[in-house]
């Protein structure tokens, strides 16, 4: 019986997590044809037509019997064209083209063309990562995806150009057609967003400091200021200040890009934090992602990096409210008609807003003609619960001639990044063996317990809490910022001064 049974492995992806799938093929008496069972979607069901054509175009004649392909476990939804290769290999193993046991334990992934060539698919890297986690070490992927699959280093990857090559490495003898392999992935990767250097920023010393604190502690940031004050420029400096991603984070980012089809592997494992600046008319569905399986949103594209929302009050209310879950939990739990998926989306949020609809309502010589009602309506678009989650709130004053012509050279990003890195190291040491690694994620209760503040130190905070200027969540956020301030200064415990400066970074004046 084992003679006409073939078996190999593949991975079913859901978001960036994958489940190992066993592909079984059995050849039995019956009318010729291929049946695929085990919860396949349309693309997987269609694969039998591609596979039949590919196999016969390689000059292989299948025995005229019934082939039943089973995808185990039956409860997991199988989506997409990446199962083609695994199904073809299982069928050919069942047909006895090579010793059937040789295909076992090898994860196959790839889309078949009608000529038997392998075409690249999305999500190869997350598949490989999931396979490694499940204990598989050998992977066969389309040649165009091989570089991507090798990014992790641990996997033994075979990049095949053609189904015939795969069959021959498994011990078959099939003439390999003289077709050039599909070598490149059509990536939608955009050139990396131009990151600016802090040296380009004129004036705005308070904002520069605020940005440094945000970078050092991973705090969310809101900048309010007139058009032209340098909000966009400052936000563009942030990725340059952040420390490079560690191996795990970089793998997550690359896995998400692979799923999105925007991965560029030419530079190896990219360790720069992502920077996403969506247009303010972007819909909530596009931000969250998951409208269809395998689709990720802007929140997930900014995972482990920076999400910059310019003109934040202009975003639709749905989008702003959708921010809450990723801000709190670092992920989006999405439930749709097609199923459920969890997309990682732990980003640092940078919001930029004008002080009022006309943009001039700040500073001494205000030319603003907005009515108080208009101003309030504009400001209220950013809801209280959202602003409560934004640690640092800065006001940018319009530039004066003195700022422009200042002779004193500006500090560049590299110097600031050095201080940020030192502060991050301090945090890593403090939170060793804990679930979080940056001040922005540290629970307030843990910090309060660790630092044992005296009454005299927290007096300004207590009175702000009493007056209702601070919520309890805001109180904890002030402590977090204070901790970052101390880290930047090279001290392990924030003092009364730090708490007071932190309070000033947190509360918007004049609102």
């Amino acid at each position: 019986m084992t003679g006409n049974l073939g078996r190999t492995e593949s991975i079913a992806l859901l978001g960036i997590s994958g489940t190992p799938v066993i592909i079984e093929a059995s050849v039995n008496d019956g009318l010729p044809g291929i049946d695929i069972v085990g919860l396949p979607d349309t693309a997987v069901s269609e694969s039998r037509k591609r596979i039949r054509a590919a196999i016969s175009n390689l000059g292989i004649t299948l025995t005229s019997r019934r082939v039943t392909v089973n995808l185990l476990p039956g409860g997991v939804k199988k989506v997409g064209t990446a199962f083609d290769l695994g199904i073809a290999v299982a069928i050919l193993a069942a047909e006895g083209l090579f010793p059937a046991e040789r295909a076992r334990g090898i994860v196959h992934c790839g889309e078949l063309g009608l000529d038997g060539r392998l075409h690249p698919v999305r999500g190869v890297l997350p598949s490989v990562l999931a396979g490694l986690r499940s204990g598989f070490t050998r992977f066969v992927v389309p040649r165009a995806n091989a570089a991507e699959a090798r990014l992790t280093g641990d996997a033994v990857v075979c990049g095949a150009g053609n189904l015939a090559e795969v069959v021959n490495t498994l011990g078959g003898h099939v003439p390999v057609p003289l077709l050039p392999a599909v070598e490149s992935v059509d990536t939608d990767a955009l050139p990396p967003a131009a990151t600016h250097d802090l040296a380009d920023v004129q004036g705005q010393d308070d904002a520069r400091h605020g940005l440094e604190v945000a970078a050092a502690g991973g705090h969310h940031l809101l900048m309010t200021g007139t058009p032209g004050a340098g909000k966009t420029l400052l936000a563009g400096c942030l990725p340059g200040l952040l420390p490079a991603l560690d191996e795990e984070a970089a793998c997550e980012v690359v896995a998400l890009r692979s799923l999105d089809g925007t991965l560029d592997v030419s530079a190896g494992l990219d360790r720069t934090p992502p920077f996403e600046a969506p247009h303010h008319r972007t819909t909530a569905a596009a931000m969250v992602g998951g409208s269809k399986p395998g689709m990720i949103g802007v929140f997930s594209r900014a995972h482990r990096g920076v999400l910059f929302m310019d003109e934040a009050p202009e975003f639709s209310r749905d989008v702003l409210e959708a921010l809450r879950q990723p801000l709190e939990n670092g992920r989006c739990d999405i439930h749709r008609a097609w199923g459920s998926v969890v997309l990682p989306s732990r980003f640092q949020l940078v919001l930029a807003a004008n002080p009022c609809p006309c943009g001039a309502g700040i500073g001494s010589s205000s030319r603003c003609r907005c009515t108080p009602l208009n101003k309030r309506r504009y400001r209220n678009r950013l809801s209280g619960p959202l602003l409560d989650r934004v640690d640092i709130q800065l006001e940018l004053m319009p530039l004066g001639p003195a700022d422009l012509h200042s002779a004193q050279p500006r500090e560049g990003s590299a110097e600031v990044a050095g201080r940020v890195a030192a502060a991050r190291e301090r945090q890593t040491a403090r939170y060793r063996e804990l679930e979080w690694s940056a001040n922005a994620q540290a629970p307030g209760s843990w910090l309060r317990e660790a630092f044992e503040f005296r009454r005299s130190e927290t007096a300004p905070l207590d009175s702000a809490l009493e007056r209702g200027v601070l919520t309890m969540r805001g109180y904890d956020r002030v402590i977090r910022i204070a901790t970052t301030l101390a880290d930047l200064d090279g001290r392990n415990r924030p003092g009364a001064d730090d708490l007071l400066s932190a309070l000033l970074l947190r509360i918007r004046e004049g609102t």
Partner: protein
Amino acid sequence: MDTKTLGRRGELIAVEHLIDQGWEIIATNWRCRHGEIDVIADDGDSLVFVEVKTRTSARAGHPLEAVTAGKIATMRGLALRWLAEQPEWIPRFRIDVIGILWNGGRPEISHVRDAR
């Protein structure tokens, strides 16, 4: 040889093949307005409706591949019509498919029992 003659010869070969196996042929080429059943036979155990498909070569695919699920469903409908015309009650029946590759005069027979 045109397809009609080929089909006719294939059916004759199929009938011979069934008789060799000791089946009793009840009818051949039974027609009604909905279609035709090539062979109706008794294999000693149950009544069998047989569809015969003949092709000169496997270039356009094996003859068995041309028998689709839709064709089997039509056969089932025809079988029920034939059964309805019979005076006595027939407790069970099945549908078989015989594919014949002509191979230039050395026919190759494949017989699928209980096709679904």
